[in-house]
């Protein structure tokens, strides 16, 4: 069943259709190759030639070559995004800034988190991320590719619970190493209610994907840098898992969906209730509760239950190779499967939320990074260590700091979205993006 098909008008880059609001935000001339998701090779050359001006993105939109990008325009540092096609919704001609509330909170003091951090900064970006929407946080997620780092925020309001309405909303920010800029913002009036637990992912040098409630329905959305939003599939799923530049998977309670040929469609029924999916071009792993670990070893193979799975509620999966797959469970353990043998690793997590390992990300050199709701750690090939851990004592039952997302570019460029609720009352809020350089965490 085909759920929707993304428009394939790949030469929309230069069209003004996708330039709404760009100028207001990207004063240094962002040009984001807008629509046209995942340009095929043939259109590579034009991948970055869109919007108002020509993008100076260091990387081409998918398929584009860097040397061809950035010609003729002011140097910009916005990403070249493949986006959704002509079905996009726009944020209006008022520009993205119009969707961001005025932040009247008092200035934010120097952030001193209850864990060790180094000097602020990532690459040439030293100013901390600033989120102006105010409300109950529903999401703070991070995703990155060679273009830079993306941060997704979602807040909602609940008057009955004491959170006033009017400044809540959704926004997507981007940092290419030179500073944060706003790519998209959903105004408060449209952001009422739950965002459905928004999640962020994307295709390398291609479209950025958001799953959740935007503006009026739940689905998988792709977003262009100019503030243009397109609904790719009206399905309620978690974070889509992308594999390369043209393949992605997502799941709901019953079905696994696949994105291929610019189209999301129902792919297979889930063999068991699922918590996470990992995939590459050939293989798919699914994990869930009740020892549910399933592998689809080839494109033509069916899902098979992996034998001898240690009991547990499996929450996360990441595979480095056929005989090198890692799992996280709700007890905060990491587990490794080499194709025949299981090994359990204690992480030392003190997270009592019951959610355990929330996310895994692996670097190309084989280091595995993980996060719980309050911690971040890694397996460096020899041992598991916590890189961010809250103090044992003095922490209230509701942790001061929680994590929201984890992604990376390499083992020395790993990003973690954290929220410090003690800073919600200050301007720019309590969301902080952290960068791990292989040794130390830094805010930026």
């Amino acid at each position, binding site marked *: 069943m085909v759920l929707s098909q993304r428009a394939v008008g790949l030469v929309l880059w230069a069209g003004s259709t996708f330039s709404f609001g760009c100028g207001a935000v990207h004063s240094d001339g962002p040009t984001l190759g807008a629509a046209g998701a995942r340009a095929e090779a043939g259109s590579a050359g034009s991948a970055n030639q869109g919007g108002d001006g020509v993008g100076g993105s260091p990387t081409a939109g998918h398929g584009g070559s860097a040397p061809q990008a950035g010609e003729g325009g002011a140097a910009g540092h916005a990403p070249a995004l493949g986006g959704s096609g002509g079905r996009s919704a726009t944020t209006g001609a008022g520009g993205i800034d119009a969707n961001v509330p005025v932040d009247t909170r008092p200035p934010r003091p120097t952030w001193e988190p209850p864990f060790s951090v180094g000097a602020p900064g990532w690459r040439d970006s030293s100013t901390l991320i600033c989120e102006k929407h105010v409300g109950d946080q529903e999401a703070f997620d991070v995703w990155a590719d060679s273009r830079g780092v993306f941060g997704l925020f979602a807040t909602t309001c609940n008057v009955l619970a004491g959170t006033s309405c009017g400044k809540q909303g959704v926004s997507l920010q981007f940092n290419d190493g030179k500073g944060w800029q706003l790519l998209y913002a959903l105004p408060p009036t449209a952001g009422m209610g739950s965002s459905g637990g928004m999640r962020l992912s994307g295709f390398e040098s291609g479209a950025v994907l958001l799953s959740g409630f935007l503006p009026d329905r739940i689905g998988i959305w792709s977003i262009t840098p100019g503030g243009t939003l397109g609904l790719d599939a009206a399905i309620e799923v978690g974070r889509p898992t992308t594999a390369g530049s043209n393949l992605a998977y997502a799941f709901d309670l019953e079905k696994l969906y696949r994105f291929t040929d610019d189209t999301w469609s129902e792919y297979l029924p889930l063999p068991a209730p699922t918590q996470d999916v990992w995939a590459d071009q050939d293989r798919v792993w699914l994990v869930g509760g009740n020892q549910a670990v399933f592998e689809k070893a080839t494109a033509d193979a069916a899902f098979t239950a992996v034998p001898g*799975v*240690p*009991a*547990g*509620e499996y929450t996360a999966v990441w595979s480095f190779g056929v005989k090198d797959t890692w799992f996280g469970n709700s007890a905060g353990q990491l587990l490794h499967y080499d194709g025949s043998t299981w090994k359990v690793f204690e992480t030392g997590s003190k997270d*009592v939320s019951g959610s355990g390992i929330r996310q895994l990300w692996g670097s190309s050199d084989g280091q595995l990074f993980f996060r719980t709701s309050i911690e971040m750690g890694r397996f460096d090939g020899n041992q598991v260590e916590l890189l961010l851990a809250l103090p044992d004592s003095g922490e209230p039952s509701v942790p001061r700091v929680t994590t929201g997302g984890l992604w990376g570019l390499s083992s020395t460029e790993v990003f973690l979205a954290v929220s410090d609720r003690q800073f919600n009352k200050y301007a720019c809020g309590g969301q902080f993006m952290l960068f791990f350089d292989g040794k130390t965490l830094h805010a930026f």
Partner: protein
Amino acid sequence: MLSFLSMLAACGGRASLNDDAGRSTPAPSGGTSAGARGGSTSVAGSSAAAAASADVGGSAGVADAGGGRSADTSGGGNSGSLGGSSSGVGGAAGMPNDTPLWRSSTEPFCPPPGSVLNRNPIWSDARGVSVVTSSSSTDSRIDSNDGSGWKRLTEDSKSGPSNPSLTGFPYGPLVEYGNSACAISFVEGTVNRCSGAGSRATAVSIVDAQVAYAVYDDRVLSFNGSFWVQWGGVLSGKDDPTYTWGVWASKDTVVVVADAGKIFLQQGMKLQQQAAVPAGDYRAVWGFGATDIWAGNQLGELVHFDGKNWSVAATLPGECAGIRSLWGRDDTLFFTTDHAFGLWRAGVAQILGDFSCAGSSSVMGVWGNSKKEVFFATQVTELIDDACSGVELFWFDGTAVKAL
């Protein structure tokens, strides 16, 4: 109003778990022994009435713990009831008492206010006896007594089960299990290590250091010496859910009991649902061997399997006679119901102590080292915020019940 369990005193009589009595004051009830007359569902209320009230003609009887007349078989039938023959009431919780309660231990167990006993909270081996309590959805603690007194074994476990139960490997780690992100933890010394990362464990049966089984919902887990894996498929059928409550295992036998009259027995490498099982929601199981397995259900029935058939061996009387836990050794099966504890031997069930059904007192579990060293855990839930949380432990020395 304090809770108090009166013990079998010198004059005998069953332990009367009297909600209205004071904790520190022995209030022995005497002279309530009855010999079984072979009725399958009777409990004699007193020695005088025993013979008259006991059913006749059945295969087994149920008897109260006898008073001073131990091994009273006057009622006929095929066995006699145990009589309490010794005094054994310990001192009040928290009060110095030079008289040993158990081995050299003089102080009764007294957890802090707010402590909760959950199902099957007590376990023992030759090293001593241990109890797990919880004080919140994630805080649990284990106290142990090696015969010299109660000592707190573990700090509050912030990630412990919300409804912790306890068992253990003889001479090995304790096993704490319940509802948690880590359903089964091994406790060695003061270190609590996650062993089984499922979210729930309803019951655990330890065979040896390398073999154990656990159940939750409609699944069975086996321990292979390193970690727990699912053993067999789900026990539910289509539109026929199964909720397991108990497991007992030996090297060659695994038995799982569940709601709705379901009992599963290992046949080969699989569990097979047993046919012709007496109806009832089963909560506990214990085996002396493959042809001598006992299951207890909410109807108060002790159901026996002789290797071929399952049949009701006895029915405990009363509205709150649902059987909660079983433990056995040699020729004696000990049981707890919601409000009483007792034993079954040679065809006779014998109540060693009971609370009023109408009260908030509960008997939570039983374990032992021998049939002369059996431990019971009780709690008066309305006293949970008082000193000792209304928790009282007892032990049975083969003749009398005493404070622990």
